[in-house]
């Protein structure tokens, strides 16, 4: 009996040296399952659930960014709502005032929104853990009150009649592709030199500084990356509903990604994405229970934290790596 993953892992770390088709299949199977699975789901559900899938995609991007910052940089960022709001408002305003099509507004909002979010977060980058979490949680509230107080950007009413996407299929596959591309890009990134430095910052930022690395510069880049995911989600969202308003800064965007990450498995990157695709439809399905919905939702989360704190993905990964095969001696 031999464990399937051992021979692959022993040969080298990080870089896989494959020697047979079966080993390649062993590594590829879960990845293909995820990609094909995610791309195929829209064919099996109706229009209503397709819409739910779109918003699940947005949460997946946020959860991915949250997991990346928390587990690979050591910044617990509750600024998801701020990313969504900034991206959404930039895209919506460009569309409303300058009549730019979504094809143009979304990329602009992704980059410009991330730049703005990063700029306001830079002064807080010295903080760690819970302190950074509290500060980043404040920013969406801050933005909401500025918009109300100054009555700019549509004030409390918001702005409606923005351009929407021409078809549901474009909506679906735009967000699903974005999720898959960012997932694999970030998985790649955390094993590149830059990712290794970021993980060093998380483990021991003093030693990184003593090694001649400017940790603020690296943290800034990491926040920019996570903010890009959120701002893309926000820009997409405002075009999805053809409307922008204060609810883009809703607390859900900051909180649900944490729940998705806990459920899916901290640090696995895939887990949070999966968690978002489970939690968002689940919260929709529970809508029938009215106020009880939140209770059920909480119970599920508590159950996860108590009985499976490692999360779905870490559990599955462990089990998958324990598959064994018979070997001729």
């Amino acid at each position, binding site marked *: 009996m031999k464990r399937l993953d051992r021979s692959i892992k022993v040969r080298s*770390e*990080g870089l896989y040296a494959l020697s047979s088709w079966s080993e390649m299949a062993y590594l590829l199977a879960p990845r293909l399952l995820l990609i094909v699975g995610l791309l195929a789901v829209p064919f099996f559900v109706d229009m209503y659930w397709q819409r739910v899938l779109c918003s699940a995609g947005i949460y997946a991007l946020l959860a991915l960014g949250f997991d990346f910052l928390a587990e690979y940089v050591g910044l617990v960022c509750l600024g998801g709502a701020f990313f969504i709001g900034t991206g959404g408002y930039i895209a919506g305003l460009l569309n409303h005032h300058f009549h730019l099509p979504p094809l143009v507004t979304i990329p602009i909002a992704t980059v410009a929104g991330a730049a703005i979010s990063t700029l306001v977060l830079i002064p807080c980058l010295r903080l760690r853990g819970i302190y950074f979490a509290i500060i980043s949680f404040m920013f969406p509230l801050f933005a909401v009150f500025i918009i109300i107080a100054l009555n700019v950007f549509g004030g409390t009413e918001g702005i409606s009649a923005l351009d929407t996407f021409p078809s549901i299929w474009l909506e679906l596959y735009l967000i699903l592709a974005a999720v898959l591309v960012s997932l694999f890009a970030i998985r790649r990134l955390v094993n590149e*030199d*830059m990712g*290794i*430095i970021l*993980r*060093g910052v*998380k*483990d*021991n930022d*003093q*030693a*990184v*500084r*003593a*090694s*001649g*690395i*400017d*940790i603020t510069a690296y943290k800034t880049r990491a926040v920019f990356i996570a903010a890009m995911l959120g701002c893309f989600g926000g820009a997409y969202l405002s075009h999805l509903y053809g409307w922008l308003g204060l609810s883009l800064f809703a607390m859900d965007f900051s909180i649900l990604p944490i729940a998705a990450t806990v459920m899916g498995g901290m640090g696995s990157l895939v887990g949070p994405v999966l968690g978002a695709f489970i939690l968002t439809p689940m919260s929709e399905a529970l809508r029938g229970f009215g106020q009880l919905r939140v209770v059920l939702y909480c119970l599920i989360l508590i159950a996860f934290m108590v009985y499976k704190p490692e999360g779905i993905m870490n559990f599955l990964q462990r089990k998958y790596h324990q598959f064994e095969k018979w070997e001729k001696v």
Partner: protein
Amino acid sequence: MAGDAILKISKLSKSFGGVQAIMNVGFELERGQILGIIGPNGSGKTTLVNLITGFVKPDKGEILFNGKDITALPPHKIANLGLTRTFQVMRPYHSLSAFKNLIVPLNSPRVKRSAAGKLGDVDAVAIDILEEVGFERDARVPYKVAGSLPLGYLKRLELGRCIALRPEVIICDEVFSGLSMSEISSLIPLLERLRMEGISMMMIEHRLRELFRLANRIVVLTFGQKIAEGSPEAVMNNQMVKEAYLGTETKA
């Protein structure tokens, strides 16, 4: 080569609230030498390291490295000039494998600027450095997660992290502490070799016997003040040093 000081510290002072951690301390580290810093617990040795490497800003005083004033520079800039340190409390990047720990310094501007930084495969360079500090090549150790390594390897890893930066000065904050005699005696040749290669070192140490074998000169601190400086033999026989360590004799 008297007078060729690579690191020159003068009139350094730092207080934390009411505690005067370092008071008017000044000394020089000569190029290619090992300077030992000793003193009882709480005498300000680690604070001194933090001051020199920029982790703590001094209240007063001046630190010259290669003639350049580095007193107000942040730690990463000082490290990029070629002055780095080890930490007393071992905290490797525990989630990374040992050789990946060295990827961090190998990505510093200092290394990237140098010719060695352009030699392509960073992972291979990292493994070479680990071998240099005593990790067995071809063994599994360099690939193990740093969090699982025993203390002896962690100390070597810490030195490896410094060497990777190709520094001119390494400040070692108690590299011998917590190691067995045999581990220490295997570490000494490594330090001697580094000195031969021209790296100057400052060693904060409690293991006096081993330090006196290595060091060219010793500085003694008590309560944040320098009370003695000189060759190991001279310091060992200094009455004030004996009193600082053992207390004064009182006649009953």
